[in-house]
Structures are given as structure tokens and as C-alpha cells.
């Protein structure tokens, strides 16, 4: 292993640049924890499918949120384009695509709110109704909470951009935020499959 110490000397990149950016490792750690947290709620949901002692059942009241899903998943693409633009130095394109991402995310949230309104006031399904209500609102609500947090952060960056504080130097940080957003989107894929495909 003596070679290892000599190659280290010979390499031209400074040591600190061989180490990853701490924000990236930090966000991966956060994503790991959050995945574990979500997993327990998903397990509870699957465990209780069909075990409610009273109605309504998912088949009676749930309709598949196609538009919502399309909006949220495409926001993962727009955020990638936004980051690319920032890396290329085009603040204008960045702010445009970042704005589109925000709008798509907000649409998803509004869609969820409409769905909940219908379920609560027209179908009479609440957290207390039965096991389906309990698991449905907690799992979907947990995800919606994460979308909300993501939207607040995205909005913050949007405001900073409009005020002229964003530049290429901040691309690493914006990228870290985009990883969080991708995570929220991937969780939706799992939630969608659990609630609207397997669970119906």
C-alpha cells in the first residue's frame, strides 16, 4: 500500500476538491431518514387495505388523480432544466423554469385540496371514519406536507432570484434543493401506486 501515499502526492487536484460537497451528503442523509419514515406509513397503509369494519371503501370514493400526477412528475423535469440553465449562466431561463416548477407543484397541492374537500364534504370520509380514512389522510397528508415544504423553499429561491441574489455560484445549493424535490416526486410514485393502484 506504499503506492497509495505516493500517488496521493503526485495527483494534481488539491485534496479538498476530491471530497464531495457537504450539502449533497447532508441532503442524501435527510432523504434516507425520510424514506424510512414514509416506509412505515406505506406499510401501515398496505397492512390495513380491506380491513375497515365500515364504509366507505376506496373503490367507492377514490378517483385516480391523473392531472395531478402528471403535473407533479413533470415538475421534476422542469427543475432539472432550471438547474441546467443556472449552470450555463442564464438567470433568465433559470427563473422561468423555476417558476414553472413552482406552478406545477402548486397545482398538485390545489388538486389534493379539492380531492380532500370532495371526500370530506360529499363522501363523508374523515380521519375518524374508518381504517381507510385513517391511513389515507395520514399517508397522502404526509406527502402533501412535504410538497408544501418543498414549495416554500422553491418560492424562497424564486424571490431571491427576482431580487437578483441568485447567480451561478449558488448552483450547488439550488441543486441540493432539486434533489429534495425529486425525492418528493418519487415518494408520490410510491404513494400513488399504494393508494390508487394496489389499494383500490
Amino acid at each position, binding site marked *: *500500500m*506504499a503506492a*497509495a*501515499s505516493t500517488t*496521493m502526492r503526485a495527483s494534481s487536484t488539491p*485534496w*479538498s476538491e476530491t*471530497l*464531495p*460537497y*457537504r450539502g449533497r*451528503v*447532508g441532503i442524501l*442523509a*435527510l432523504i*434516507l*431518514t*425520510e424514506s*424510512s*419514515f414514509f*416506509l*412505515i*406509513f406505506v406499510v*401501515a397503509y398496505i*397492512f*390495513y387495505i380491506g*380491513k*375497515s*369494519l365500515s364504509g366507505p371503501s376506496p373503490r367507492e370514493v377514490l378517483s385516480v388523480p391523473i392531472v395531478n400526477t402528471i403535473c407533479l412528475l413533470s415538475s421534476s423535469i422542469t427543475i432539472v432544466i432550471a438547474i441546467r440553465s443556472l449552470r450555463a449562466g442564464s438567470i433568465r431561463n433559470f427563473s422561468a423554469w423555476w417558476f414553472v416548477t413552482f406552478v406545477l407543484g402548486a397545482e398538485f397541492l390545489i388538486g389534493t385540496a379539492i380531492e380532500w374537500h370532495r371526500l370530506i364534504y360529499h363522501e363523508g370520509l374523515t*380521519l*375518524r371514519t*374508518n*381504517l381507510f380514512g*385513517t*391511513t389515507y389522510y*395520514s399517508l397522502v397528508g404526509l406527502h402533501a406536507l412535504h410538497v408544501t415544504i418543498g414549495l416554500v423553499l422553491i418560492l424562497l429561491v424564486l424571490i431571491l432570484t427576482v431580487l437578483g441574489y441568485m447567480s451561478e455560484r449558488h448552483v450547488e445549493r439550488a441543486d441540493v434543493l432539486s434533489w429534495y424535490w425529486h425525492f418528493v416526486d418519487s415518494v408520490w410514485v410510491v404513494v400513488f401506486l399504494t393508494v390508487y393502484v394496489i389499494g383500490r
Partner: protein
Amino acid sequence: MAGTIDREMGLDAVDDLEQLPILGRLHEWVITVDHKRLGLMYITGGLFFFLVAGLQAATIRLQLAVPNSGIVPPQVFNRLLTMHGTAMVFLVGMPILTGLFNYLVPLMIGARDLAFPRLNAFGFWLWFFGALLLYFSYIGGDGLYGAGSAPDVGWFAYAPLTELPFSRGNSTDYWILSILLTTVGSTATAANIVSSVFCMRCEGMTLTKMPVLVWLATVVSFMILVALPPLSAAQVMLLLDRFLGAHFFDTQAGGSAVLWQHFFWIFGHPEVYILVIPAFAFASEIIPVFSRKVIFGYSVMVAASCAIGFISMSVWAHHMFSVGMTPAGNSFFAASSMLVGVPTGIKIFNWLGTMWRGKLRFKVPMLFSIAFLFQFLVAGLTGIMLAVAPFDWQLTDTYFVVAHFHYVLVGAIVFMIFAAIYYWFPKATGRMLSERLGRWHFWLFVIGFHLTFDTEHFAGMQGMPRRIYTYQPGRGLETLNFVASIGALVQGIAVLIFVINVVRSLRSGEPAGDDPWDAWTLEWSTTSPPPEYNFATLPVVRSRRPLWDLKHPDDPDWRYE
């Protein structure tokens, strides 16, 4: 501990502090983001709760010393039991271990701080207020005489007994909220340590050159990130049940009682390893230094720890053999539990290999480490016994189990916490702990430990049930219980000697110098206590024992690695 740092130490930052009035100095500790101070705050807080929870254990043992004793009523006994278990795990084990990692990891990887210092402070204060909240519960409810409305649900809080109809009042809510807060604090530390290890190492410290302790801190941090959220999730569900009328664990609405047990033990079992792997980490630093040999089988050691981390995630249901799982379930969890024994055995073999033909120095940290090796071996063996499902059906919820897990929690974890404190105290304070008092502490603690927990194995086999506030005479339990209680008293005296040792040494201990043990890792290359910035110039390392290389330029390690 700020006031105790000596003026002569010549640290400018500390000098300034000495001039401040007491409130100003306290303020400095409140606003600090320095990993060393936060580490010390975690450790001090943990030791404080160790005394409190120890007092509760002593009361429990006092109550059980003779049959039908009636020193505490049943309700108060349940509260003592819950607070003892909960505090020992979340307010003693977790903070002391994360505190030590907080203190040591940046120094050992040659960094000036952790990756996210402010997150670190945030985590500490969450832990702190969570801990206060748990004990705050004593003030409410039935008042102090009835020991308040402290939680009485056991540290596992089995649902549906913790659901509203069966657990009125707010004691369970205190338990949930306070543990939620402290776990978020621990998770923040874990994320911080992972990020620091990957992003803050000094020049030349490749992953294969990190001290074993840093490796194990990383493994533990990953385990914390994965294993703590299930508990938080289950607690959130319980909160939804209790406050918003959800039905997660409500059997009247078709909910499941077993689901809570799964969720709790998916957290609960890895938690035991989260607590014990740090003990391995301290042993892996202390045993080589006091044997004057490099650690035997560095890479095997690291690999075995990673294996333990993985396997221990798949054994949780060995706590649930008596629930009535399927035979296939029983077999799977029995087999995976036994599998954990393999890497654990490898590690014991490696520590023995390190001591083999070494020049052993029997200083206090080494004494504690040797006792740890022996006791952990026994704990592993009784653990394998319990992993045999039919054997567990016989002995579950008896004192055999209590004895087994205290062999791990006290015999391994507390012993290595003491070893670590004796070993690193000189670094953190600039003063040595007294060797003479340390020996008294060690021998009394070993004797007390074995008096208490050896006998409990036999009490368990005689049929002494766990979590019971009293027992009847004439069943062969009197002598064993009495001896166990004497042992608890002896342990208490030992801990008192330790406290005296710490307080005295802080004021008048022998000055330690930078490297009192003639050790090899980076933390000993800076002053004791280290300056706020840790290293005046960031170190460059070329081997796993950078200080050895410095001291022996004629025969450095990197030639062989």
C-alpha cells in the same frame, strides 16, 4: 464545565471567558456551535440523567429486595420502571454516545468542526428540551406525592394499552412528545457525522486510513438514520389516534395491536446495536493503545461492523416470539438473530488478537475494556439462547431477559462509557482522573454488576416475572432478589466514587499534557483541551497512526500499510 478550565492553559478564547461574569459564561455555552462544547453538553446532560435514572433503578431494586415490601405503590412502581427504561435509552445512552462522537470525530479526522455546526446546536437543544419535557411530566397530574403524571406505560408503550381509553390523562403524550424531540436531535447528529466523515477529512485521510472509531461512528449514524424514523412514525400515528380520533392501533375499529410491536421493535432492536457499536468503537481505540499494538484485523473489524449494522435490521421480531407468529416467521427471526453472533464473535476475536502478546498496561480505561470483553461475551451467549424460539417462550418476560439485556446495556455500554471517559477526560479538560479512585470505582462496579445481574439470570429461571412490582415469599426468590439489590447498592456507591473523582479532578487533577497515554490518533496531536479551531494548521496524514509516524520518523507506519 467552562469555569473549571484553568487560566494557565493559555487559550485566548478561554481566557476571555474567565473574565466574564457567570451569566455571561453561561450565555457563551448557550449560543455555542463548537462541536467540542456541544459534545461536552451532551455528555454532561447524559451523566446527569444517568444519576437520576440510576436512582430510579435503585428504588426499583429496593422495592424488590424483599417480598411484599410495599415501599412504593404499584402505580409509582410502573412510573419508575418506565422513566428508568426510557431515560436510560434516550437520555443517557444516546446523548453520551452521540456526545462522544460529536467531540471526537472532527478531531480524529483532522477537521476544524462538523459539517453543519448550527444543525448540531439545534439538535442538542431539541434533545435538551425533549429531556426536560419527559421529567416535566412529574409536576402535573396527581401532584408530586403520587409522583405526578409521569408515564407508566413502559419504554415500549405497547398499544392499544397506550390508546386513550386505557391511558387517560397526558402521561403517554409526554412520553410520545419528549421522545419525538430527542430522536430528531439524534438524527440531526447522525446526518452531521455522515456528512463530516465524507466531506471534512484532512489531507491524506482516505477512508481506509480513518480510525476504527470514525468508521463505527459512521455505521452507527447510518443506523440512526434508518432505524429511528420508524419509532417517530409510530409515535405520530399514536398521537393521531389519541388526539384526532384515528384508528391505527384501535382494535375496536379493526386496528392491530401487533403492528405497534412490529414498528416499535423495528426501531427497538437496531437501537440496542446503535448503543453497543459505540462501545465497540471505544474498545477499538483503547485496547490497541494499552496493548502497544496496532489493532488486529482493521479491515475485518470494519467489515464486521457493517455486517452487524445490516443484519441487526432484520432481527427485530425476536422480541415477539411469544406474540404467536407463524413458524416460518419464528424460524427466520431466530436464524437472523443467531447470524448476528458471527460478526460479533469475529470482533471479540480481533480484540483478543490485539491484546495477544502485547505489552499490556492495566490503566483504568483498559480495566473497563477487559471487563467489557468478558461481559459482552456472556451477553452474546445468553442472547443466542434467547434466539432459540422455544427457549424464549419459556423465559420471555422473566428476569432472565432483564439480566440478559442489562449485561449488554450495563456490562458493555456503561462499562465502555466509563472507559471512554477515563481515556478522553484528559483531552477534554487538560487534567487526569485519579487512578486510585478510578480503581475503586472499577472494582466496586464490577462486583456490584455481577452481584445484581448474575443472580437475576437464576431468578428468571426460577420464574421471577419481569415488570412486576412485588412477589410472594416461599418460591425460592428471596435470596436471589436480596443479593441483586445489594449489588445495585454497591454499583451506586461505585458511581458515587466516580462522581467524586470527576469533581475533584476537574479542580485539582494532575495536569495531563497533550498526549498522556502515548496514543496514535490525531486528537492527541493538539493541546488539551483543544483550541476552538482544533488544529492551528490542518494535519496531513499518511497512515492509520499519524502520531506514531511523527514520533518514529525512522520507522513510520506508512511503509507497511
